[in-house]
């Protein structure tokens, strides 16, 4: 018999959809914010998105060029390591499969880098085959700076800190290099379904 909290019943607001909720998460209707510092407000005239590192010819797009890329609209559930989950969030942006077209690399890992000096690391495998996007619209509106606008990563199958806000580029790495939260106690991979929140989970 496991531990029981005397007198605790719980609200069970989420039971109808409980199969969609990873362990330890609860459902919210609003959209909370998690970030380590103030919200950056980059200038779109000088904004670029680049792919660099283990790549023969690094790639770079300006904001206008980025908006001209083929875009997709996707609806996904998102899961924040601070325990909230939100269902059916709708985003518009560019799939990594599009961004990586023609790219040859020996890298197996990637580091996302953002305005505000934020980085997060992901296996390359987790960015491809329709698993990750750079998004610039949320629910049909331009992405608000608080939520990572002008553009952020969307990697919905991992905890949401892996979806770097204010994204400026991806570096292809041969070795795995822990990013910002990953060097600050948070898990290197971050699968919500295996509750990989912290080091050692």
């Amino acid at each position, binding site marked *: 018999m*496991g*531990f*029981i*909290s005397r*007198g*605790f*019943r*719980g*609200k*069970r*607001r989420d039971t109808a959809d409980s199969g969609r909720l990873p*362990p*330890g*998460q*609860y459902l919210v209707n609003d959209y*909370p*914010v*998690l*970030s*380590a*510092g*103030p*919200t950056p407000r980059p200038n779109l005239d000088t904004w670029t998105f680049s792919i660099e590192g283990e790549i023969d010819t690094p790639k770079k797009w300006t904001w206008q060029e980025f908006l001209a890329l083929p875009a997709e609209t996707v609806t996904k559930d998102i899961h924040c390591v*601070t*325990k*909230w989950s939100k269902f059916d969030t709708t985003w518009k942006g560019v799939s990594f*499969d599009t961004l*990586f077209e023609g*790219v*040859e*690399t*020996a*890298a*197996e*890992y990637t580091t996302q880098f953002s305005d*505000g*000096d934020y980085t997060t690391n992901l*296996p*390359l*495998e987790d960015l*491809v085959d329709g698993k990750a996007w750079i998004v610039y619209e949320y629910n049909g509106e331009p992405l608000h700076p*608080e939520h990572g606008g002008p553009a952020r990563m969307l990697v919905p199958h991992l905890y949401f800190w892996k979806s770097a806000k204010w994204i400026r580029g991806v570096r292809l790495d041969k070795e*795995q290099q*822990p990013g*910002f*939260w*990953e*060097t*600050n*106690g948070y*898990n*290197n*991979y971050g*699968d919500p379904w295996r509750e*990989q*929140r*912290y*080091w*050692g*989970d």
Partner: protein
Amino acid sequence: MILGASSVTGEISLNPHEVRAFGVTSRGPLLWTQAELVELVHETPRVASLLFNVPDWPGHLPGQHVDIRLTAEDGYQAERSYSIASPPEERSVALTVERLDDGEVSPYLVGELRVGDKLELRGPIGGHFVWRAGDDRPLLLVAGGSGVVPLMAMLRHRAAASHKTSARLLFSSRTFADIIYREELDRLAAASDGLTIFHTLTRDTPQGWTGFTRRIDAAMIQQVAWPKEQTPAVFVCGPTPFVEAAADLLVGVGYDPLWVKTERFGATGASGG
């Protein structure tokens, strides 16, 4: 598209330098342990401090938090994060929780839980929003409502340290009665050891109130914040809208965004004006 075959791994290897940077030595998995409530202190009508005896507590840094997990008889569970209010110098772990009447976990912690009860807890968690007394930069703390909790761990740590950095706390509460830790803050400020505390009340002010009486704004930040030439260490904590506003104002007075560390309690932490 040709991409190298990658192997997904959840393993991490960290070099000793990074482990030291985190501040706590051994980094095995963070296991759930049963913590016993040994003392309950009512801070305000809606806020209580809970003192736990946590077996084998590894120690923590001011600013870190724990996760707590509640389990109902049928196995239903709820988890939430709570900042640690006690300084590293103390053996027991104190949390300070604001009761949200329609919330799931906080009304249990403030209302149901009694001395002698246990709950499951794991931590300490977080290596970014932390402060050590050895940091020489002037300290600026900005709190909205229960956002004062991790900042209180910093002030308590500072009070216990031999070398005391100059520090300022700007604390926004709704009413006088809602000021968490009011008497302890008064005592800390009265020590005249380089700590200045500024209160602002956003709803209601008592007769003779000499603090600010509005939401934080540019003029208030101008008046309270260290000049940017002093390159302060800044910690902002509270409900998300409060943190957004405060952090923007600090960048507005010329602070480098990298000096400003934020912790957002989410849309859920309702207080702070």
